[in-house]
Structures are given as structure tokens and as C-alpha cells.
């Protein structure tokens, strides 16, 4: 990488203040053509704020500093403005038009696709299909976005940014909800764009990705550039140290599978219907989790992992038996599941997690108010103490319990949801992508938390797209493919390759059945 090449896109002395919170304090940043520049930092360091400024989400005038494109000063009044200047952006949180089809979403905001104001539906779908094929993604362009799970919505957003053929592309945690194969497909696309000379800014908390694909890294810390690292000096430990100022001990905390503990959760012949689109459902699932055991569900996107969790939690209708603590329970709604001591951390914070009309504190206690109230009246003091304790336990960084959740950084939103789920001290905890969008240091806090909970006898069933994480954390992994459990192995009995092999074998077998 020739770093003496003139930057294509650069920002100088960017500072941004949110009503008292100084999110950025004088950041210099640039990307050259054909470079993938990693932007790293802990939750709340200011990464998203920086790219939102570079992309016009925070319009010119709301920050100080200058932006240059091709050596010319530019100022963007809106994302559309940035887009027309060849600057594309994939936001961290999913922003899709729910009521439109996938193809319409991909081309949203584009004109000139039909005759005059009319849109050629067929043409849109064809073009979208081509792009998906390019991306190696299996999504029906005619499906309604409302029916897609969150990882696929994210892919739709990525496709939307890429069809613009941007010269500069900013990706804010694009892989947070993707699993291995989709990440590989995305990387292939990014490499291609790179060869075409596109300048890319890439935000992630997954350090192996930085090692794999990035040419340069800039680490933000408390709104300032802590360090810039050239590819030659890349090293996970350096990254973590410069982000958090802490040395990392062990990647995964030690945990031994419990021996002889009773079964806490047992699922027999569970079937969940898919609801069209890319959600295929799950069939005939048998699994059990002992008290204090950490079990992982590994598999590809859309394999039915989340559906299994949703079925157990009563979010979707399911058939089969669910036993908790040796007793069969009938779970028809989340309320039933909660009464049985089951809790679920959902995957999509924006859609299924946060209540944007309530402040941080009330977001934590919602659904958990029974012990904090007397005869239906919330006891303010008790609630406040519980909130403060929960925020401290999980290190949720917010200016106060009454702050709005909208402006918490992604990682802090995730921790807040963790706090909500843990407040009821569940016996069985279902975690769907628990470390999504969480920085390296916090990720370790979450791993430690998971192990601590398991040590206390909580049973955990985890879905995570990062196989390394799942295998490192779990006592036992179940491999899910096409809505069925196709393989099972304990800690140390297999790695990522084993998961991929069983998935491929299952798919091949299915193919054979179909053609037979």
C-alpha cells in the first residue's frame, strides 16, 4: 500500500458535540483510492459519529472541521447529497423500508430505472437478482423486507450501497450479524471494489476481519485518534491495547461442562413454521441443556437457529414439547416463557429490542417491574436503585438513566438489553447474537458474564454467527442446517471446519433427496 498516494477522501480536525457530550475532538482521517481503512475503537469512541459526518447524516454546519473529496472541499447537507457525490454508506443500524420488496429497497432513492416516473418492476427485480448473485447471497428480490430476518436485511442494505457504484464506501459494522460464508462473500466483493479503486472505510469489532482485509487502521479513543497502524504492524493485541488501554488476558474464560447436573431445558420434537421469504423454520428439534451448561447453535444464516430460540420463547407458534426443570410447560407466548424462567435476548436491537419512546432506565426495567412495585404502583426509589445497579453491573455508559436510548452507541444499547434480560434472574437464557456490535473489551466482559451465569447454574443456549466465538465459549455445539440439527460435538471435539463440513454434508444429502 503506498501511503504517499494523495487521499481521495479526507477529513481534518473534525469535532462534534451533542448537547454537552463531546463525541469527536479534532479527528483527522483519510482514505486513498483502492484502500480499505479500518476504523476501530471501543463502544462510544465516536466511529459511527465520524462516518455519519462524512456521509451527511450529521449535515454540514452541525460539526466543525473540513472534508475534502479529491482535494476539493465538500460539505454534505444530507446522505442523498453525499451519495450524488459518490460517497456510499451502510449504516450500523438496519434502515430498510419494511413495506417494500427487497428489489425496491435495493434501488430505493435511485431514479432513471424506468420510463419517466414509472418504475419497471421486472427490471428492478432482475438487476437486484444479479447483484445478489454477485454478492453470493440467496435472497428472493421479490420477498418483502418485512419478512426477512435481520442479517438478510443487513445484506439488503449493503447491496443498496454497492449498486450506487460509489467511489468512497463507508461500512459501519457490516458483518455484525453475518456468519462466515456471508462474510466471505462480502469480502470477495470488497476486494473487487478495492481493485476497482474504491476507497473504503470499514468499521468492525471483529479483529480477525481487520487482519484479513484491511490495509490500514485508525483507532479512535474518546473521540480522538489514539493511533494509526500500518498493515505491517497489524496485530490483535496491539489493537486491543490501543483501543482500551488494557492488555487482554485469555480470549475465552475457562469453563468446564457441568457434570451430573439435572437437565434444565429439554425440547422434544419442536417444529416452527417458516414465515415465507428466507425464513425456513425448524423441524423436529430435540435438544437439552443441563443446569449450568452453555450450548451453542451453530449454522449459516437462515438455517433456523433463531427460529428455534423463538419457538422456545413462544415468540412464534411451535409444535412439540418444552420441559423446564423436568416439568412440561405450555408456552404460547413470551409471557408464558418468562413465567417458566426463560429469557431471550433478541438479535435486532432496533426492531425487537429497544423502546425508543422510553429513557434508558425504563428500557431496562420494562417487563421487570413486578418486584419494583407495590400493588401495581412503581416505587421510584427502588426502581432507580435497580437501574443504577444494573447499569453498573454491565457497565452501560449513558449520561443518566433518563437519557434517551436513541443516542447510545450500538454497544451500549446491547449492554442495556443484556441488563433488561438479566434483571429477572432467568434459569434458562436464550442469547441471539449476544456480542453483536460489542467492542473487544466488552465482548470479554460478556463472555465472562456468560460463564459466571453458567457457574451459578443458569443454562444458556446461544446463537452466534462468529463460529470461533461460539466454539470457544460453549461446552457443546449443535450444528443446525436447513432447520434441523445435523451434528453435535463437545468442547475440544471439533472446530469451525467441523461445523462447515456437517453443514455441507447435510446440504448435499438434502440435494440428493430432492433429486431422487
Amino acid at each position, binding site marked *: 500500500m503506498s501511503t504517499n498516494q494523495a487521499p481521495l477522501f479526507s477529513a481534518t480536525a473534525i469535532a462534534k458535540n*451533542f*448537547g*454537552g*457530550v463531546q463525541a469527536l475532538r479534532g479527528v483527522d482521517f483519510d482514505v486513498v483510492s483502492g484502500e480499505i481503512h479500518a476504523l476501530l475503537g471501543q463502544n462510544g469512541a465516536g466511529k459511527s459519529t465520524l462516518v455519519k459526518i462524512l456521509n451527511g447524516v*450529521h449535515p454540514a454546519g*452541525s460539526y466543525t472541521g473540513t472534508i475534502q473529496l479529491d482535494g476539493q472541499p465538500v460539505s454534505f447537507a444530507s446522505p442523498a447529497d453525499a451519495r450524488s457525490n459518490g460517497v456510499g454508506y451502510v449504516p450500523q443500524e438496519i434502515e430498510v423500508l419494511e413495506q417494500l420488496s427487497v428489489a425496491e429497497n435495493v434501488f430505493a432513492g435511485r431514479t432513471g430505472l424506468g420510463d419517466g416516473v414509472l418504475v419497471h418492476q421486472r427490471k428492478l427485480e432482475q438487476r437486484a437478482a444479479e447483484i445478489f448473485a454477485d454478492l453470493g447471497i440467496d435472497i428472493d428480490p421479490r420477498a418483502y423486507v418485512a419478512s426477512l430476518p435481520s442479517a438478510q436485511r443487513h445484506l439488503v442494505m449493503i447491496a443498496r450501497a454497492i449498486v450506487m457504484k460509489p467511489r468512497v464506501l463507508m461500512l459501519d459494522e457490516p458483518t455484525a450479524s453475518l456468519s462466515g460464508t456471508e462474510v466471505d462473500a462480502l469480502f470477495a466483493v470488497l476486494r473487487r471494489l478495492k481493485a476497482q479503486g474504491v476507497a473504503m472505510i470499514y468499521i468492525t469489532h471483529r479483529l480477525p476481519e481487520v487482519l484479513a482485509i484491511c490495509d490500514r487502521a485508525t483507532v479512535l479513543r474518546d473521540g480522538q485518534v489514539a493511533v494509526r497502524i500500518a498493515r505491517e504492524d497489524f496485530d490483535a493485541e496491539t489493537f486491543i491495547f490501543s483501543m482500551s488501554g488494557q492488555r487482554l488476558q485469555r480470549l475465552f474464560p475457562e469453563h468446564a461442562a457441568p457434570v451430573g447436573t439435572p437437565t434444565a431445558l429439554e425440547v422434544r420434537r419442536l417444529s416452527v413454521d417458516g414465515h415465507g421469504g428466507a425464513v425456513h423454520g425448524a423441524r423436529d428439534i430435540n435438544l437439552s441443556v443441563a443446569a449450568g451448561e452453555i450450548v451453542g447453535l451453530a449454522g449459516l444464516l437462515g438455517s433456523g437457529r433463531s427460529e428455534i430460540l423463538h419457538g422456545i*420463547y413462544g*415468540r412464534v407458534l411451535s409444535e412439540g414439547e418444552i420441559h423446564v426443570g423436568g416439568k412440561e410447560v405450555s408456552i404460547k*407466548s*413470551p*409471557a408464558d*416463557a*418468562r*413465567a417458566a424462567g426463560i429469557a*431471550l435476548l*433478541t438479535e435486532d436491537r432496533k*426492531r*425487537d*429490542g*429497544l*423502546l*425508543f*419512546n*422510553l429513557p434508558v432506565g*425504563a428500557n431496562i*426495567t*420494562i*417487563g*421487570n*417491574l*413486578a418486584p419494583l*412495585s407495590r400493588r*401495581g*404502583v*412503581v416505587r*421510584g426509589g427502588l426502581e432507580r436503585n435497580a437501574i443504577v445497579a444494573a447499569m453498573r453491573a454491565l457497565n452501560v455508559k449513558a449520561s443518566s438513566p433518563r437519557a*434517551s436510548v*436513541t*443516542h447510545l452507541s450500538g454497544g451500549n444499547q446491547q449492554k442495556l438489553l443484556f441488563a*433488561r434480560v438479566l434483571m429477572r434472574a432467568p434459569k434458562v437464557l436464550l442469547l441471539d447474537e449476544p456480542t453483536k456490535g460489542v467492542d473487544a473489551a466488552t465482548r470479554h466482559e460478556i463472555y465472562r458474564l456468560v460463564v459466571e451465569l453458567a457457574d451459578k447454574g443458569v443454562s444458556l443456549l446461544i446463537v452466534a454467527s462468529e463460529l470461533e466465538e461460539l466454539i470457544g465459549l460453549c461446552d457443546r455445539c449443535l450444528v443446525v442446517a436447513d432447520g434441523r440439527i445435523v451434528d453435535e460435538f463437545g468442547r475440544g471435539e471439533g472446530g469451525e471446519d467441523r461445523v462447515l463440513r456437517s453443514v455441507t454434508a447435510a446440504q448435499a444429502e438434502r440435494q440428493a433427496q430432492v433429486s431422487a
Partner: protein
Amino acid sequence: MNSAAEVSSPRRGTQSFRRRLIGLIAVGEVGVLAAMALLIAFFWLLEPAFLSERNIRAILNVVSFVGIIAIGQTILLVAGEFDLSVGSVAGLSAVVAAKLMTAAALPVTVGILGGIGVGALIGLLNGLIVVRLGIPAFIQTLGMLFIGQGLIQSVTGGYPVYPLPEAINTIGGTDLAFGLGWSFAFFIIAAVAADFVLRRTVLGRNIYATGGNKEVAHLVGINTNACKIGAFITVGALSAIAGMFVMADLGSGGTSIGSGWELTVIAGVVVGGVSLFGGAGTVAGGVVGILMLKVVQSGLVVIGVNSNWQQIAVGVIMVMAVGLDIVRRRYFIAGA
């Protein structure tokens, strides 16, 4: 290290003051109250008779009727739905109650309970249809508005129900204080109770969650359908009560009771910062909003503005109030 702390402390002082100020403005009711104070001063300067005892009483009296409905409508809006049939329900409940007391010659209490029952039943029906069948509240309650109007005509044959039992006239004629009667007392008590429920109870919090994001509320174990249906029933029952208070006030079961109230009520609570999108607003805000709307209407009458302009003023105020609310949210709460 030390000196830095010293330097920053006075700044922190002003900042916390600023923050408190922002917090105060961010409370919806404060903005409306301030605006209302300005308007009152304005009308009073132009025409001192605006603050005459008689006029104040007239305003409060009208507010007590529509205000009772506004309480229910606020709860329903917070739960993420709304009801356009409140005026029809008020009228229908009034004439049904009147018929039960007169034509059916039933005791007054039975008549009143019958009236409330009609309101609650329509609320239940609205709620069930909206929640279970997924028909938008706009359509369902607009339909109910027409159905209610038709039922009023067919129950009464187009004639006001008259005369009513003496007990009803007594309820309507009682002067508790300052020329205000039972309807005002009920309005205040109901408003305080409802405000408390929304602000301080688990149920209230669950209603906010339901209106904020139904799916999330469902996932944390809240029975969102019950919240919504309950809110519909509450609006229905409160509309019925308001309608019967008007009936008592008039001394007859008039066929035009409640007509046109639905929009006044929604405009009023929206002026008071209750969000049409659900999950935001307070009963205090909704009530203050409707008070402000009535202050403007009355003020314009008192200073002698042509009645066409009164309507225009109401429209402008509502749009402005919502516009200001959006700006307020963006700049004060978002802090951007």
C-alpha cells in the same frame, strides 16, 4: 489534574443549569402552559371581559365535557391507537340512557349504567376488531362514528328525549363551587387518576411500551392486546360519561350531543404533546392541550373575531403545536 478539575467546575455548574432548563422545556406540558399563559394575557389585554367570572366558568364547563373524553383519548393514543367514534358514542350513550329512564321507565342508576355499558361495549368492539382482525383503528372507528350516528337517529326517531327524571336535572344543575358542577369534579378526579396511572404504575409503563413498539412489549411479556382493548374500553366508557353529563346539563337527551367532538378532542390532546404515533404524551399534557384549544376559541369569540376565522385559528394552532413539538423533540431531547 487538579487545576483541570477546578477550571471545569464553573462550566459544569452552568451546564447543569442549562440541562435542567432543557429538561423543563422538554416536559411537554410546560411549553403548552407557557403558550396558554401568553394567549390568555393577549386576549385579556384586548378585552378584559375575557377573564370575567362568567367566561372562565363557561370555558371550564365546556372543557369538563370534552376533557373527560380527552383523558381516554390520551391513554388510547399512548397505547398506539386512536378513536374517531367518541362523539357518536357520547351521543348514543346519552340517548340510550335517556330512553331507559323514560320510555323503559327504569331507575336512574340503571339508565346511567346502561349508558356507560353502551360506551364500554362499543369500546370493546372497536378494540377487538382493531386488535384481532387487524383493521386499522382509523377505519374501524370512522365506521363506528357513522354507525353511532345512525343508531342515535333510530333510537330517538330524530327527536330529543324529554323530559328526563328530576334526579338527572339535579345532577346537571348542582353548583359545587364557582358555578361548576359534577362534570367538572369528575373530570378533575379522572384526570388526576389517569395521569397517575400512566406516570407511576406498572400498567402505565406497559401502555407506553405497547404504544412505543408492540413487538418489544410483547417480547418482554406484556399483554399488548389487553392494553389496547382496555384503552378502547376506557375511551368508550369515558365518552359515554361525558355524553350523559351534557345530557344532564341540557336537561334532555338531544340528538346532537357529541357531534363533532372527535376532532376537537384529538386536536386538543395533540396540541398538548400527545403523539399520534403512540408511546408519548401524558394525561396532564392532553388536558392542558384541550384547555388551550378552548381558551383560543373562547378568546376569539370574546374579542369579536368572525366565526370562520375561529375555525382557521384552531387549524393553525394544531399544526403549529405539532410542528413545535417535532422541533422541540429534535433540538432539546435529541440534543443534536
